[in-house]
């Protein structure tokens, strides 16, 4: 093997071209752990969340509860313990293996989109199953795209792709072509399919049933065509909208399908339309072109086979990602050559982060992984061309499989509304029953007269063929039944079907205002507020719990390298940073004058710079050298040179000019570290799959990358094996402290001096880590070691085998990693600052005042979490912190019970727990800012005597404990404790645990939950919560895609909830009640009339008026009010967050209001009917005049009713309210001017009568009097908070007056 040969990062570097099939080791040694479903996410932000259970099991066996001691200065015992259990590792994995229930496996497997038979996975399961088990409870909420890593089994059902042989490829298997169709309909299928889809809505079925009933001859209440009108109207509007949308989809599909790509056809790359591309074809894609389908890379313009792609369309991440063509295929010439190969890959699935396959090419067999595939929807960047073979085409591509929308949510208010709709149905039923019963009784009474009644006439009179036959009379029972049905038709709008359409329109309008709100516009990212879900606007006004992610949500996720601990010394504290040009000077003292320009300037610590410029002889110096080498080398960051002559800068000739480097990486932490290394003179300037080039103070250092173990959330570290130019092989590791300290080299006692130093370094580093994390920094531990030839050989062998393996590759790789990730020499640690976003503390404070509980769920360490909690005012120094971090179920039970019984008196708990808890509590003191420390110490001591009930509690719980607690039996305990606490902070939680915690609250209370997050790890939480808010952050668009609302910054949450949430809730609550009222008052008016028509379902109103009432006459003002009305200005609402609690108290919509509205409705309907009844009791008024009077009156009445409740009259409101009155009149006049209607000319007669006008006035006054009176008295003597605030706002009393003493009001 020659070092110059570029090697693939994930593939073997075995010089032997033919892979050697080694006998599989009977039992793998190493951290075997159950495959976590979330491990497939590549984001490293929640990296340290998942795998605590592994450690937990270790701890059990070693019988030292140490999970929460990681960050504390370890004393000798615990270090020894660590070593001991490390050495004992292999032994206690075996028993664990046996514990694993196989059914778990099956369970998990079935989640995947692929059918998998049972296959031996048992040995993989370890302590993490506990997470799994809990997780499986909440699997219904999971996004289906989250899949298990190893759902591919080549033996079962591989997909075979013959390279450049589409015929053979597609012959046996029916793979889809590359044509995509996002459109739903074709011209032929449009009508049936669209109707079918539309009638999935219950409302339409109701319409249809009513219309169908009306077509039956004995029931025809309305004219047959008229009764179809509302349904047809709604259907047409919706069909038109759907049709238009689909037409646009057709057009974009067509455009997409007709794009052209270069496809290898008879030895030549020729243009071919995208839709004609088939699986197995070889396609060439040039720079900046889109990729037509999912392809396995065969070759690229880069000789080492690298290609860069941008995945912004797929996951929203804008940084470039590297993909590699396999070395075996990279040099193949495709044109004019016959090539053949076979790709065996998994069945199409949604997971964009995983791909498992292998390939046979020119007799070689090698594995393919995610880094060898480029996906449809991505763009090729920085690479001249790539050639690949299509493996998934069209609908089977991962992009298309992922394009389904997340399930829609229904608002809480709407479900309450449905409950009330049930009541309305009861009313409807009762009314219909009364009519039917009345009809039956009346017929029974008149039984003998039915043939003589001039207005009934059961039989035909005439002598002809109908002689003596009954006419539309089917016996009393049937008549009663028909009467029931026809009264349903007449009273149909009692169920306010139009309300659903109204609400949709209103929400649309509300979201317009939310989107347009300039206070929720993030200028830095140019992102507006987004309403992705239109169903839950009003839920924003009732949020009780906010679950927030930390990184990227509370913090900016812009990482800045702040502190470094190298060889036991801490650098970068503010004392030894000089912010002038000192460091630059010292750097430029280096050999070369060149410096690399970076986007972010890091102020280097002078001491550290000095150290780096010493000679390479001291240990400390060597450690510092290796430290920065690791930072520069151990990552997956891609340096992109921003200079035109790229080639020249990689060659050795040095230019005087300054090169600018842009680091592209998947993790902001890594970018920060690389940038930091560069600031100290270790600049990563080139990365290929086989080697990296680091500029060490001007000297080019070329390192061969022999292997790379990527970051995963189980190991929580990454390592890279490199070969120095001198042939030495080193493994460089960086990772979370918890995972790192257990694999450091044993400091055996016999080498006392060195051991002591090392030991001291370890101790010092650990105390530095605590310091860093207490400052809110994210910490990583850096270590390295030399590999001996034997170790290297073994590793390489295993690595090769693992990376070519088709099954359980990641597990095998993980096992391989443990071979070398051990006995490491500690180099130091880094502290990266994650800055708080703007306005976070203020927002949290406001939310808290508004009665919203903010819970932070983070993957970070406990200390980091607490310090961030303190800095964003989530935790306040006067709070009692209840810390739960148990390592077993028993311990958690006890901790919870203790906490509950002591109500958070922590000192007692610490006493019980002995040594480590004493430390724990000391540690807690440290977290409290200095000025308050004494007071809280005294508080702690005084705690038991005084009774701490008044002190707010803060619960801090870690993911480890949650694993045990989220089992069924402890959940209630946690719940009790958690809701007693003012703040809950969950650290080191896995993504699915986040969802579990949301579920904890959601399933046990009626309170509304909101989850806010920015990363893929928050998706499950966002989908679980009642309201999911995504932040358009740095971590891609996964969270945004899954969310209901998306915005730019956390601080907008305040405005979203307190202002828009409040308004929306207020508006929709009123809207619903008003719509109930509006329809019910109309129906009840009809009902009273029917009692005076011998229970025959006559309506005095014309058919058209009945139909237009809720559609046209009264609908517009409701919509306008639902969109525009507002009770309080946004200033008032923001100034007094407590006003938000109106939503918690369900002030705008509740049972009481519903029943009051219904009583009011009853009164108003009685007035509506009986006033004209008495006025025209013995008069010559005809039925149509009466109907006309009622129509006008009811519209006037409901309009004035609405007008009385409008709180803010803008021009539009005036136009809508009075305009619809005018429109009603115009419609009446028009309808009465058409001679074919029976009501012809009615209105012209009526307007001449004074009685008519006086009746309208009288009805309006009497009907609204009780309501007005009640409202006046209620507002006067039992004012709601909102009412008071409104008065104060209008009278401009707010400033200053708020703090006036209570009591002065009574005189």
């Amino acid at each position: 093997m020659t070092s110059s040969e570029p090697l693939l990062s994930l593939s073997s570097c075995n010089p032997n071209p033919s892979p050697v099939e080694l006998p599989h080791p009977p039992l793998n040694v190493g951290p075997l752990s159950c495959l976590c479903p979330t491990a497939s996410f590549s984001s490293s932000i929640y990296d340290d969340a998942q795998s605590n259970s592994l450690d937990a099991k270790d701890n059990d066996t070693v019988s030292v509860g140490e999970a929460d001691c990681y960050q504390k200065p370890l004393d000798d015992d615990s270090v020894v313990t660590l070593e001991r259990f490390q050495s004992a590792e292999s032994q206690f994995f075996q028993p664990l293996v046996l514990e694993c229930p196989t059914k778990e496996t099956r369970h998990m497997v079935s989640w995947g989109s692929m059918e998998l038979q049972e296959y031996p996975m048992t040995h993989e399961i370890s302590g993490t199953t506990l997470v799994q088990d809990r997780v499986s409870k909440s699997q219904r909420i999971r996004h289906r795209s989250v899949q298990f890593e190893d759902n591919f089994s080549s033996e079962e059902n591989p997909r075979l792709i013959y390279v450049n042989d589409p015929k053979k490829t597609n012959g046996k298997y029916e793979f889809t072509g590359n044509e995509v169709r996002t459109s739903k309909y074709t011209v032929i299928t449009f009508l049936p399919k669209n109707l079918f889809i539309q009638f999935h809505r219950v409302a339409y079925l109701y319409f249809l049933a009513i219309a169908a009933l009306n077509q039956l001859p004995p029931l025809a209440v309305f004219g047959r065509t008229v009764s179809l009108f509302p349904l047809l109207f709604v259907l047409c509007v919706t069909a038109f909208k759907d049709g238009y949308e689909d037409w646009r989809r057709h057009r974009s599909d067509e455009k997409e399908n007709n794009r052209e790509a270069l496809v290898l056809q008879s030895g030549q790359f020729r243009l071919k339309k995208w839709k004609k591309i088939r699986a197995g074809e070889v396609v060439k894609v040039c720079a900046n072109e889109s990729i037509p389908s999912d392809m396995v890379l065969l070759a690229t313009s880069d000789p080492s086979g690298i290609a860069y792609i941008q995945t912004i369309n797929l996951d929203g991440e804008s940084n470039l990602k590297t993909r590699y063509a396999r070395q075996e295929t990279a040099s193949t010439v495709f044109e004019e050559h016959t090539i053949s190969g076979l790709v065996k890959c998994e069945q199409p699935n949604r997971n964009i982060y995983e791909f498992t396959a292998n390939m046979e090419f020119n007799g070689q067999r090698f594995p393919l992984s995610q880094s060898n595939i480029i996906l449809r929807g991505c763009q090729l960047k920085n690479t001249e061309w790539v050639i690949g073979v299509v493996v998934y085409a069209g609908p089977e591509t991962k992009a298309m499989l992922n394009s389904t929308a997340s399930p829609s949510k229904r608002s809480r208010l709407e479900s309450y509304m449905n409950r009330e709709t049930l009541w309305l149905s009861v009313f409807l039923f009762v009314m219909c029953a009364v009519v039917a019963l009345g009809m039956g009784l009346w017929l029974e009474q008149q039984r003998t007269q039915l043939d003589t009644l001039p207005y009934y006439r059961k039989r035909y009179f005439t002598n002809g063929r109908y002689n003596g036959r009954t006419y539309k009379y089917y016996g009393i029972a049937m008549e009663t039944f028909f009467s029931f049905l026809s009264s349903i038709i007449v009273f149909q709008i009692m169920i306010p079907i139009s309300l659903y359409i109204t609400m949709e329109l209103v929400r649309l309008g509300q979201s317009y205002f939310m989107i347009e709100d300039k206070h929720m516009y993030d200028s830095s990212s140019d992102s507006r507020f987004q309403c992705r879900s239109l169903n839950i606007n009003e839920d924003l006004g009732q949020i009780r719990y906010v679950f927030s992610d930390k990184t990227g949500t509370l913090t900016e996720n812009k990482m800045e390298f702040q502190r470094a601990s190298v060889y036991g010394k801490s650098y970068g504290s503010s004392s030894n940073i000089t912010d002038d040009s000192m460091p630059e000077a010292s750097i430029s003292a280096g050999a070369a004058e060149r410096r690399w320009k970076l986007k972010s300037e890091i102020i280097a610590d002078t001491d550290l710079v000095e150290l780096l410029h010493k000679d390479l002889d001291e240990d400390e110096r060597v450690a510092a050298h290796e430290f920065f080498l690791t930072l520069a080398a151990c990552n997956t960051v891609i340096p992109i040179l921003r200079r035109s002559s790229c080639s020249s800068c990689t060659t050795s000739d040095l230019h005087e000019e300054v090169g600018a480097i842009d680091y592209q990486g998947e993790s902001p932490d890594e970018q920060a570290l690389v940038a930091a290394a560069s600031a100290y003179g270790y600049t990563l300037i080139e990365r290929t799959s086989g080697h990296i080039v680091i500029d060490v103070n001007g000297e080019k250092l070329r390192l061969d990358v022999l292997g790379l173990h990527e970051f995963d959330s189980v190991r929580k570290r990454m390592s890279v094996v490199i070969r120095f130019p001198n042939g030495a092989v080193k493994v460089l590791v960086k990772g979370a402290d918890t995972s790192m300290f257990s694999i450091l080299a044993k400091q055996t006692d016999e080498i006392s001096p060195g051991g002591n130093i090392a030991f001291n370094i370890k101790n010092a580093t650990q105390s530095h880590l605590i310091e860093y994390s207490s400052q809110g920094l994210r910490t990583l531990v850096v270590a390295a070691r030399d590999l001996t030839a034997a170790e290297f050989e073994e590793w390489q062998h295993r690595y090769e085998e693992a990376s070519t393996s088709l099954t359980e590759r990641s597990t095998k790789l993980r096992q391989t990693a443990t071979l070398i990730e051990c006995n490491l020499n500690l180099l130091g640690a880094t502290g990266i600052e994650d800055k708080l976003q703007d306005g976070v503390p203020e927002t949290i404070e406001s939310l808290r005042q508004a009665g919203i509980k903010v819970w932070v769920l983070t993957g970070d360490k406990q200390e980091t979490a607490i310090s961030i909690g303190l800095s964003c005012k989530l935790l306040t120094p006067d709070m009692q912190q209840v810390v739960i971090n148990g390592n077993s179920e028993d311990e958690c039970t006890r901790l919870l019970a203790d906490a509950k019984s002591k109500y958070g008196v922590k000192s007692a708990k610490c006493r019980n727990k002995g040594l480590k808890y004493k430390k724990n509590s000391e540690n807690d003191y440290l977290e409290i800012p200095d000025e308050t420390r004494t007071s809280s110490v005294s508080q702690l001591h005084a705690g038991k005597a005084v009774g701490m009930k008044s002190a707010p509690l803060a619960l801090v719980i870690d993911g480890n404990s949650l694993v045990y607690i989220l089992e069924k039996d402890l959940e209630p305990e946690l719940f009790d404790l958690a809701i007693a606490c003012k703040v809950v902070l969950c650290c080191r939680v896995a993504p699915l645990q986040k969802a579990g915690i949301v579920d904890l609250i959601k399933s046990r209370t009626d309170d509304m939950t909101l989850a806010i997050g920015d990363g893929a790890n928050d998706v499950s939480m966002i989908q679980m919560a009642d309201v999911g808010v995504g932040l358009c952050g740095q971590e891609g668009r996964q969270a945004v895609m899954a969310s209901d609302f998306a915005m730019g910054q956390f601080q907008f949450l305040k405005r979203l909830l307190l202002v828009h949430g409040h308004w929306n809730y207020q508006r929709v609550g009123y809207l619903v009640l008003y719509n109930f009222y509006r329809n019910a008052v109309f129906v009840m008016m009809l009902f009273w009339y029917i009692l005076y028509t011998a229970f025959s379902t006559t309506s005095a109103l014309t058919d058209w008026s009945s139909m237009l009432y809720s559609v046209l006459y009264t609908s517009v003002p409701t919509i306008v009010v639902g969109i525009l009305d507002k009770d309080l200005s946004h200033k008032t609402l923001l100034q007094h967050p407590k006003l938000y609690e109106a939503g918690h108290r369900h002030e705008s919509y509740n049972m009481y209001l519903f029943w009051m509205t219904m009583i009011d409705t009853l009164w108003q309907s009685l007035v509506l009917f009986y006033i004209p009844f008495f006025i025209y009791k013995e008069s010559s008024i005809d039925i149509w005049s009466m109907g006309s009077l009622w129509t006008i009156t009811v519209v006037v009445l409901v309009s004035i009713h609405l007008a009385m409740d409008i709180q803010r009259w803008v021009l539009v409101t005036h136009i809508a309210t009075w305009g619809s009155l005018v429109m009603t009149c115009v419609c009446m006049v028009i309808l009465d001017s058409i001679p074919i209607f029976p009501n012809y000319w009615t209105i012209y007669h009526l307007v001449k009568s004074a009685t008519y006008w006086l009746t309208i006035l009288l009805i309006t006054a009497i009907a609204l009097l009780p309501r007005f009176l009640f409202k006046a008295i209620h507002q006067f003597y039992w004012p709601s908070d909102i009412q008071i605030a409104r008065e104060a706002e209008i009278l401009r009393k707010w400033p200053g007056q708020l703090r006036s003493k209570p009591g002065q009001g009574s005189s």
Partner: protein
Amino acid sequence: MKDFFLVDSRFSQQELPACKPMLTPGLVIMAFIFIGTIFIPIGLVSLFASESVVEIVDRYDKGCIPEKYGKHMVAFIQSKETNKTCLRTLTVPKLMKNPVYVYYQLDNFYQNHRRYVKSRNDKQLRSKAYASETSTCAPEATTANGSAIVPCGLIAWSLFNDTYGFSVKNKALEVSKKNIAWKSDQDSKFGSDVFPKNFQSGGLIGGAKLNSSKPLSEQEDLIVWMRTAALPTFRKLYGKIEVDLEANEKITVLIQNNYNTYGFEGKKKLVLSTTSWIGGKNDFLGIAYLTVGGLCLFLAINFVLVYVIHPRPLGDPSFLSWNRNPAGHCTYG
């Protein structure tokens, strides 16, 4: 243009200039007083108008049955042999200025019954071309041999057929039957070329027969009858007496009591009434207005009193829920 954008952004920021009405005590009291002061005069005026209307009501359905048919009223009315003339004497209580409207009032007659309301065909009534159009007229659509009845349907069939002849001091009072129907109905709904055909020719006679030489548009009794009443008790205009009737005059009415309301216990009344701007006699309207107006004034006074006794300063933050109950030391109340 700049103004436009300004307005536009104020709209999207929901900051448009707005009127924010608020129920201040003053406003409530003003509203009540306003309603009171408007309604009481209206009530008084309408009551006065109602009082000025003179109305004579005479129920004659029972009185017009000879004693011997007392138990067999239906038989009496259905018989073709019986003499249905009936003489009634009415006394004019007050001066009745012309025109005096003559109504007949029926009780318990559900002209608003769904079967009844629908049993007509407007097309047939309107135009000769649709003479055979009887689709909605069942069960009174065609004769035994299938030819269409014009006008068809229950409504026309049951046309009221009592007649009244008035005389004062043995001098006949002329009752004008012109212009008793709506002009619009005559013009547009009842065709001038449509003549009654096959009407009341079947076995069962429902009511009046029509003069088959007169077009429907001139059959005003039919047009009045076919404008179906809203409520089961209704009046229909019979005619107008276009002379003044002096107080205490005795009016003799010769009634042809033909219409069968006995089959369903309906009442028949003859009504003579003058009219005012309010229409017929209608005390309810005035009383209702007075009541509401009085109530509002009463409420206004109450509100004034209550506000003096127990006022609440508007917008006083001390009434806010979190100020009323600050944990522990709540003193307000």
